[in-house]
């Protein structure tokens, strides 16, 4: 039911996620923040049941923080963080799986922006753009048409906004609010949100 959209551009990554939290026929809230900050320069947009979303993001982000504390402040690269998250998903698969699909984006000095598409089974791919949820069916064609190599931040944001408009037009389930975040050399920053997550 969740929508997570990610686009990588020259110098960073933009991730957008819907803010609806609901089950069965009921909407509990429309201001949930589904994009978790992992480290100073990485974030993870998650789709799945709220329990696993919270459990998984807290587990991964705190373990990444622990690594930095235990290893003299050594920062884990986005690639390393994605591999760690993938490893945990794979390990949990045959025990008690996390039913989450993830888009992990981050900024590193050398590799600039990078985006990883992970699913609940522990599959991982480095991608230039990606989506999780039913949204995949709606926005993939927009990515194919509008995502160019060497996009600027403005281009990437335009693509994301086009995707959100498409979801609002054509997707059956009501997802009125979206939160959009970017990560670049300055760190993780909120670009816009529909409902203020601070109220949760």
């Amino acid at each position, binding site marked *: 039911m969740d929508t997570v959209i990610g686009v990588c551009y020259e110098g960073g990554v933009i991730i957008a996620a819907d803010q609806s939290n609901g089950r069965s026929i009921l909407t509990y809230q429309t201001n949930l923040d589904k994009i978790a900050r992992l480290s100073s320069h990485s974030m993870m947009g998650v789709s799945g049941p709220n329990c696993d979303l919270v459990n998984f993001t807290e587990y991964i982000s705190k373990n990444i923080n622990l*690594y930095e504390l235990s290893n003299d402040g050594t920062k884990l690269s986005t*690639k390393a963080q994605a*591999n760690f998250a993938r*490893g945990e998903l794979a390990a949990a698969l045959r025990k008690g799986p996390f039913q989450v699909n993830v888009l992990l984006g981050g900024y590193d000095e050398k590799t600039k922006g990078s985006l990883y598409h992970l699913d609940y089974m522990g599959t991982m791919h480095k991608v230039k753009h990606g989506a999780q949820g039913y949204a995949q069916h709606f926005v993939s064609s927009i990515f194919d048409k509008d995502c160019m190599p060497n996009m600027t931040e403005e281009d990437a944001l335009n693509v994301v906004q086009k995707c959100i408009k498409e979801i609002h037009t054509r997707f059956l389930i009501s997802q009125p609010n979206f939160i959009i975040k970017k990560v670049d050399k300055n760190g993780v920053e909120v670009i816009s949100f529909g409902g203020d997550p601070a109220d949760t």
Partner: protein
Amino acid sequence: MAVSSSSSINYNVYNYDMATPQFTPDGRLLQVEYASVAAEQSSPLLALQLKHDTIVLIAIKNSNTQNRMALLMDPQNPVCVAMSGVLADSVALLQGVLEESSNNRKRYNKELTILQVANVIAKACQQNSFGGGIRPYGSTMMVCGFCDAKQPVLYQTDPSGAILEAPCPETPNQVRWMIGGSQSLQRQLKQRINQALGRSPLDSSMADMIVLASRILIKETRKANKETKDKGAPASLEVVVLSPSLGGQRLTEEQLNAIQERISAKK
């Protein structure tokens, strides 16, 4: 006699903890200190700092099957672990490093940093210095490689679990650190080698400097061990070169033979 041990299994019945590291009245852990002395049984292992960014490790092998220096990780990002002291203990510590670097690779798809490698060794050494029927590791190890800024870094670990960072010498072409051999032998070697390298012409190649240092190492070690027979015979040398451009290279049989020939020729 109530003797407490910090191991989870109680060996008191057997009195195995009679000789394990416990404090002396003047606050020293004698077993751990004695373990450090075990390194003197190995012949000296030199780490030379050449031309600001290259480390060359030279040693005489005591065993003809086991190398004293292990080159780990990919050649572009080399880590060298050098051993001295009880060989079996050193190899066991090295196994721990290999296991931890494999786990790190599996979990994060990332290699361990030099300091992390030193920490793995130091942690194992420290855990055994608690005693409880287990003796400390009698190994003094050296871990060298390059940090992010492509600067050579070098750490020494000892049986207490301490990590010592060996500073970069101010002038290039000097001995940066040494493990193995007695204190007096190390002092002698350092002085002689620094003198010889200092006197050699500025355009000396790395090969020249390796030959110079190896010759002094072999001569002084044999003198210290009072080996009078086989004076001219070639020694079992082991040389590893670490540089940001070459990565980590162990000198081949042919290269080592060439060095031996040059050493014998000068005699």
